[in-house]
Structures are given as structure tokens and as C-alpha cells.
């Protein structure tokens, strides 16, 4: 029997889709939001895919049949995951803030060195400089 129901599966799938779509943006703030949503998604997944739903796993003064009690282990794991996600969210926010302070935006720009290597002409110039120094076999230069 599935421990997960269709509604939950859809919610989780939806959160993953939206969350990852946001993670794929360049603005770090959007990425933070995406990360938070994904955190919700994974925690839900952990909870609902992990165990049977039921009464809270707190005996509450009564002796319940264990069958009707929710699985406590995924709850404990999700609890840990929530906390971790929270800490990292704060850190990401700080990163966004720092980026904004240093560059005036919080976008994840492309890597400069990669771009440099990717641009043949620039590379050729740098390469020829490297050639002179390092032995003539530096790549890419049109000799």
C-alpha cells in the first residue's frame, strides 16, 4: 500500500518543479526562494513518502494501537532537515547581501576565467603571452 497519496505526490512534484525553476534563475534572492520551496518539498517528501500517516506519535496519555500512529522516524528526520535548511537559508541570504554589497546586484554572473577561455580571440592573445613564457605549446594560439 502506498504511504503517499496522489495529492501529496502532486504537491511535492509541484514544489520541486517550482523550486528548481527558481534555482535556475540568476538572482540569488530567487534562488533563495527556490531553495526554501525545495526544502519544503523535500521535507514533505521525507514525511509522506517515509511513513504511514496517523495520529501524532505522542502517546498523549492514551495507549493507541501503533498501526494508527504516524511513523515517527521520518518526522525526526524532517525535523533535522528543516533546521539545516533554515541555517543554510540564512547563509544564502547573507551571500546575496554580500554580493549586492560588493557588486550592486545579487546575480550569479558567469565565471570570468571560463568566459576568457571560451573566447578564442582573447585566449589567443593570452595564449601567445603564455607561449613566450612557457614554451610555445600553449594552446589555441593561431600561429
Amino acid at each position, binding site marked *: 500500500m502506498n504511504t503517499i497519496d496522489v495529492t501529496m505526490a502532486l504537491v511535492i*512534484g509541484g*514544489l520541486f518543479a*517550482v523550486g528548481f525553476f527558481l534555482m535556475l534563475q540568476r538572482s540569488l534572492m530567487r534562488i533563495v526562494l527556490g531553495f526554501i520551496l525545495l526544502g519544503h518539498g523535500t521535507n514533505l517528501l521525507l514525511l509522506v513518502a517515509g511513513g504511514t500517516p496517523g495520529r501524532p506519535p505522542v502517546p498523549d496519555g492514551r495507549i493507541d494501537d501503533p498501526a494508527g500512529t504516524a511513523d515517527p522516524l521520518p518526522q525526526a528526520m524532517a525535523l533535522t532537515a528543516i533546521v539545516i*535548511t533554515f541555517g543554510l537559508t540564512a547563509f544564502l541570504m547573507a551571500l546575496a547581501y554580500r554580493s549586492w554589497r560588493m557588486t550592486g546586484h545579487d546575480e550569479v554572473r558567469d565565471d570570468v576565467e571560463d568566459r576568457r577561455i571560451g573566447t578564442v580571440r582573447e585566449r589567443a592573445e593570452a595564449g601567445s603571452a603564455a607561449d613566450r613564457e612557457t614554451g610555445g605549446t600553449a594552446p589555441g594560439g593561431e600561429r
Partner: protein
Amino acid sequence: MLFLLAAYAAVAVAIPWWQPRLGRAVWAVASLVPLATVAWAGTRAARVLDGGEYRETLAWAPSLGLTVDLRLDPLSLLMLWVVAGVGALVLLYCRYYVERDAARQAALLLAFAGAMTGLVLADNVFVLYVFWELTTVASFLLIAGRGEEENERRAARQALLVTVAGGLVMLLGLVLLGWTAGTYRISAILADPPRGGAVSAAAVLVLIGAFAKSAQMPLHGWLPAAMVAPTPVSAYLHAAAMVKAGVYLVARLAPALAEVAPWRPMVLAVGLTTMVLAAWRALRATDLKLLLAYGTISELGLLVTLLGAGTRTAALAGAVMLLAHAAFKSALFLSVGILDHRAGTRDIRELSGVGRRMPVLFAVTALAAASMAGIPPLVGYLGKEAYFEAFLYGDARLDGHRQLTVVLVIGSALTVAYAARFVQGAFGGPPEGAARRAERPEAGFVAPVAVLAGAGLALGVGYAGTAALAAAYADAYPPGPHGPYELSLWHGFTPVLGLSALTLALGGLVHLGRRSLPVTALLPDAQRAFDRTIAAADRLALTVTRHTQVGSLPLYLVVLLTTVVVVPGAALAAGAPPLGSPLPWWSPVEPFLAVVVLTAAAAVVGTRHRLTGILLTGAVGYGVAGMFLVRGAPDLALTQFLVETMTLVVVVLVLRRMPARFSPGRTMTRVRLVRAAAAGAVGVLVTCFALVASAARTAPAISSGYAHRMEEAGAENIVNAIVVDFRALDTLGEISVLLVAAVGTVSLIRVGGRGDARTPGGGPGGPSPTAHWDEPVRTWLPGAPERPGGERSVLLEVATRLLFPSILVLSLFLLFSGHYGPGGGFAGGLVAGQALVLRYLVGGRADLGAAVRVPASVVTGSGMLLAAAVGTFPLLLGGVPLESTVVTLHPPVVGTVKFATSLFFDVGVYLLVVGVVLELLSAVGVSLGQDMAEADEAEATAEDEEQGGPR
């Protein structure tokens, strides 16, 4: 034998320390080690030549087949003498030659000699490879020298890459050979040679390595280039010793592999081609070293041919030629070194008349050259006789031996020609120019040349000794059809003698007619081939890297997600496990919550306001918390609510200092579609995966076991018991994350060190005129009066004054009640944190300081310390870490108090969380309004950019 290697290593390492004191004497000291080797080998020679052998073994990594097996047999002995003998002479010669970096060069030369010694003694294929590569490295270092000149670096690198490439191929061959033979011991492989297809492959691979090392065509290009090295290095490494390593390997393995399919054709084809073409090339060289280098390649071709041919006579000839070549070629190189050193040039066109200026040198050089040309009674002649014999009367295994003999004759004739060209070019002509200025070399400078040249004569005249040495190796083969060939200066008038004479005559003719030789380079330009290969590799590298490493994070993530979707997704789709029969929902409330969650989440995508984004995300969080409640997880819901509020607070506090809207990025529709597709695919995958996985469950969850253990854990709330007791290690990790995240957040936000500056709220428009109206008259919060009136509110301050203690009591309740109901240290800590947030928000930084008079980091640190200490404490009592005990106390008045010691762990968590909140507040905690002007500017800029169109 091990002590020999140790001696080489030790002296090589010690030389840089000795050199400043020893000065030029360092060379003499260095040469002692190879001299000792020669002597040592001499003492062992009798038994070895008698068919005996010496073995030593040192275990290294036997399970990998790596055992330092050393063995002294006739071939090793021969090589050892060559290596150590020439080595000693070269080192002595260096005393006069080397001007600078003496310590480095002496150490390297000695290290090289040691490596060669190890190489020829190795009886394990891997040990052989080890020393093989060590010689390569030494060669690289010696060629590169200081590497100040471009061509030095280039030549060194070329030599390194080519020989290492060959070596790697060879390594694979050796592994294959050893694996097939079932042993990596060379003597064992020779004793019981393996057969089969794998062995053929191994033979080819090994030969490629040997060819690269011995500069066989077409892998020879590095050797001429390596002539930039100092001449003693050329003499030793690139004539006498290192390049012989490949030849040695061929000689070593030929008894076992000569009959394996492609061995003999390969050896003969490559060896003879190399011999002829390189000799031809030598005729055109004007640089004496280059001439010798091509000559060396040619001779190596001959040696490969002879030693790889796999017949007794050929092997005998090869062994003799090996000795001969070592003697004459190093003598010639050293001679060129003297010329270069004294005349300042080694160009044939500039040297003239040196012979008259330096007659002794001329004489000994001529003697060496004569040996190279194969003029009796020198050892070169002995060898030539033997190899003509081997091919002319070779057994059936030397297929097409007549044609091969013709090639040999041509090659030998060309050798005669370039020998003549060398002598003529170096010493001939009337004295002029450089030669006239040249200073005569000291006797000690010429002595090594003389000794080597004399050795050629001695080995020729004393052919019996030479024969004994060579035959001891060659006897590994069965004698040919005409019985064992004996070395001799005179076999009578035989066709072989005729061929010898023919080579001399032809060689002389070629030399005389050298001016009318065609200028075509029959040899392919290996240099260009190497350069092109390197350039191609670089181009490939550039192309691949340019197309993979594009530097764009979103693209990386798309690739990543696509991989995650495609790889497991394909397996899932292919296996198509059942989806099960899931319920539409667990509780009818779920669909409503689902609508809230999904709508809010979707709305996050659309918004361009940061604050709106976080508010909508908060709604998602509340919805998820609702789901937690519905599914019977109040602990989760509680934590989720608290975290949601705290996240909102932290984000908003940071947002305070950032622009209101997202940076206006323009993304192409196509890109957006790709992103949406990737993200959507992950969503679909997760949905299906979750359904499939939960449908597949057969075994009951292990968590049913917890309920029975609650008594032992001293708790009622299973989730809390798991968190602080059963799986407290998770929690310890979790708080470590929190700790480090908080610490990192603080360090990130306190950038530039101007975090404390306080600007009274007010940008262009200033605060609202009503802002200061609700400033309270009385002090309700100790620190609040330090804030400007415009930021105060009587309602908030009074309410905070009333609520703050209540919230703290609530937090303590949650801390202590966690064992019995929803709560625990984390939730409690967050509640207390909220109380502090409230104080900060309403009373400002000063009031937060008044509330908590301990630095935030101290609270965090003590929380962490307490939790970890509670975990460690049971160790002192002989328990296990993180163990919890139920303690029952009977204090007066109260009666019985029962609690689990894991409560203290929870207290640590509580403290840590409070500390973390404090850290976050202190990080973002600058008075409201700080940086607002900056934020505004940034936003204005962004707006301008937006209006200005895409960047």
C-alpha cells in the same frame, strides 16, 4: 646490489650539501660510486659469466607484484659496466666542463647513474619500469637545466613526454605480460615464456615503449632536440646509457618474445629503417652534436635490430655493438664537448684546423670514430663482422635475411661516411677562426675521451674477453645452424669480410661525394609531428573545455538536473515498477492545503518583488506546516511555523538593505523554456518516484520498534526521543550546521567593517511626520530610549514589555515539555529567539544588548559545547557517547522528579539556537534605515538599466 642503489641515492642527495666545501673535487667524489660499481661488478663477473647469477629481493608491495627483485646476469653485467664505466668517466670529465650548477648536475648525473644501475639489475617488470621512468625524469631535469632558454624547456618537455608516453604504453604491456605469465619476475617470464594473443599485444606495447626510449623512428624526434643539454649529459644519457634502456629491454625480452607474432618483423622493420634513415640524416648535419645524435639514432636502430632479432649470432653482435657504441659514441660526444668548450662552437662550418691545435684530442677522437666506422682491429669491426654473419647466415627465422643484409650494408656504409664527415668536419682543414683562439684542453679533460677510445681498441684486440662477455648473454639462444659463431678479428677471406670492406669503400665514396648528395630529407620531420600533436591536443582541450566549462551556473544546474532526470528516470521508466494504488488524499483537508501551497508557490515565480516573494514563500511554508499537522506531525508543524517566521524575519532584515525588486534580468524565452522543462521534469520524476517507491514497500518500517523503548528513553514524545536520544547524533550534526551557518552569515554580512555606522532613518523624503508621535514617555524597554523617537512605538513597547517574559516562559515550557509533547530544545530555542527578535525589533540594538549581556558567539559556543559535552560525558562514566539515562531524584517539597539526561543535550540545543538567533540579529542588526540610501541608488540604477534595454 641494494647497497649500490642506496649508495647512489645517498651520495646524490648529499652532494648539494658537500658541493660548497668540495668545489670541483665534487666530481671526483661523485665518480667514486660508479667506479666502485665497476669494481664490484668485476668481482662478480667470473661467476656470472660462468652461468651463475646474483639475486637480491626487497618486498615493496608484493600484492601488486611490486617486489624489488634484483638480479645480476651476463646482460646486466655488460650493461652495468657500460653504465658505471662511462658514468665514472663522464663525471670526471665534468670537472673541467661544468661551469655552473655543479651540485645540481652532479647530483642528477649520479642519481641517473643509480637509476640506470637499478634498471639493468631489475628482475621485476615494474621495478624496471620504476627505474626506467626515473631515468626519464633525470633526463628531463638535465636537459632543462635552469630552463632559462625557451629551447631548453621545450626540448626537455618533448623528451619527457615522448619517453613517458612510450613508458606508459610499455607499462600496460608489462602488466599484460606479467598477468599472462602469472608472474612479474623477469627471470621467471624468461624461463617460461607465455604465449597467446595477449602476449602479442604485450609485445607490441613493450616494443613501443622501448622504441620511444631508444629514439626509434618515428619517435626519435626528442633525441636531436635534447642536444641542448650540456655535452656530458648528451654523452652519457643520450649516447651511452639512457637511450640504451630501450635496447636493453629489447635484449632482455627477446629470448622470450622473439618468437611471438609481431615482435621480429617490428624490430627488424623499425630498427633497420631507423638505422639507414638516421645515418642519412647525420650526413647532412652541420652541428657536430646533431651529427652524433643522428648517428646515435642510427646505431640504436642497429642495436634494436640485432638484439631483438632473436638469434644467437645477432644477439652476440648486438652485445658487442652495445659495448662498442657506448665506448665510441660517448668518446665522440665528450670530444665535441671539449671543442665546444674551448673553441666556443661545434659547427662544422666554423671549425677548421682544430686537429693541428689539439693533436692528442684529434688522435683519440679519430680512434673512436674508426671504431664507429668498423675499422679493424677495433671493437666496432668485431661487431660488424658478427652482424653480417648473423644476417648472411642467419637461420630461417630471420626471414628475408639477404635483403636485410643489403640494408645493413647500406646503413654501415653511411655510418662510415658520417664518421668520416665527423672527423673531417671537426678537425680537418687549416687552422683558422675559432680554432686558432681555442685553448688547449688539459690532460685530465682529454683523458676520459682517451680512455673510452682506448677501450674500443682494447675490446677489439682483446676480443676473447669481449667474446666471453657477449657470448654469456647470447648463449640464451640456441646456436645457429652452423654452430656457435665465435668472435675473431680474422675469420679468413669470407663473404663477411668482403661486406666489411664494401662498407668501408662505399662509405669512403659517399664521404668523398658528399657535396653532390641529394638534399632530400628521407627522414620524416619528427619535430614538426610532435609539435602538431601537441597543438592538436591543445586545440582539442580548448574545444572541449570551451563547450563544457561555460561558467554559467543556471546552465550547469540544467545539465545537472537533466542528468538526474535522465539517468535514474530512464531506469525507472525501463523497469516500470507498479505505481500502486494510492489514495487520492489522506485527509479531505489536504486538497485545500495543496491548493494553497501550489498557488502560492506558483505565484512566487511570477513576482518581481523580493518582499512579495518571501511572503508567498511563507504562505507555502504555513501550508506545508498545515500538512504536517494533518499527517500527525505536530512537532514538525511547530518547528516549521517557527522556522517560517524566523526565516521571514531574517530575510526581511536583510532585504531592508537591498533593493525592493529583483535585478531586472532579461532571459530569452528559449532559455526560460529550457529551464522550465528541466525543472518540470524533476517535478514529474519526483512525483512518480515517490509513488513507485512507496508502493514498493514490503517490510515494515523499523520505527515500530521505538514505541517499546520509550520507557528506557524516559520520554513520551517519540519524535523528541529520536531527536535527542535515539538519533542524537543527527541532532549534533544539525546544530553544527546551524552554528557554522550563523558564524558564516555574520562574517558575510559584516563586510567592509562599517556595519555599526548608524544613520538616522531618512533618505530623500525623510520619515513620516507622524513617526515620532507615538514615542512613549516612560521607559518600557531598557535600551529603547537610545533609538530615535521616530522609530519607537508606545503600543509596541508596552506590548513587548508584557509579552517578552511570557514568550520566554513559553520557550522554557517547550524545552522541558519536549519529552512529553511537541517541543524540545530547538523549538524552545526558536521561541526564545523570537522573543529576542521582538526586543530587537521594538527596542533596537541597544535593547537587545540590554536583554542579553553576553556576546552572541559565547551563547552559541556554550550551546555547542554543552551539547557536545553532554554527548561526551558518558564516556567518563564508562558509557557510550550520547547515552541518556533516566534520573530519578527525590528533592524535598516536590516529591519525585524524573527526567532523562538527554534533557541537558536539549538544553545545549536550546542555547545554541538562541545564540544563533542572536548572531543573526547582530549580523543584520544595524539600526533600521542603514544603507537605505544605497539600496535606493542601486534600485535606481537597475531601473535605468531596465529602461535602457537589454545589457
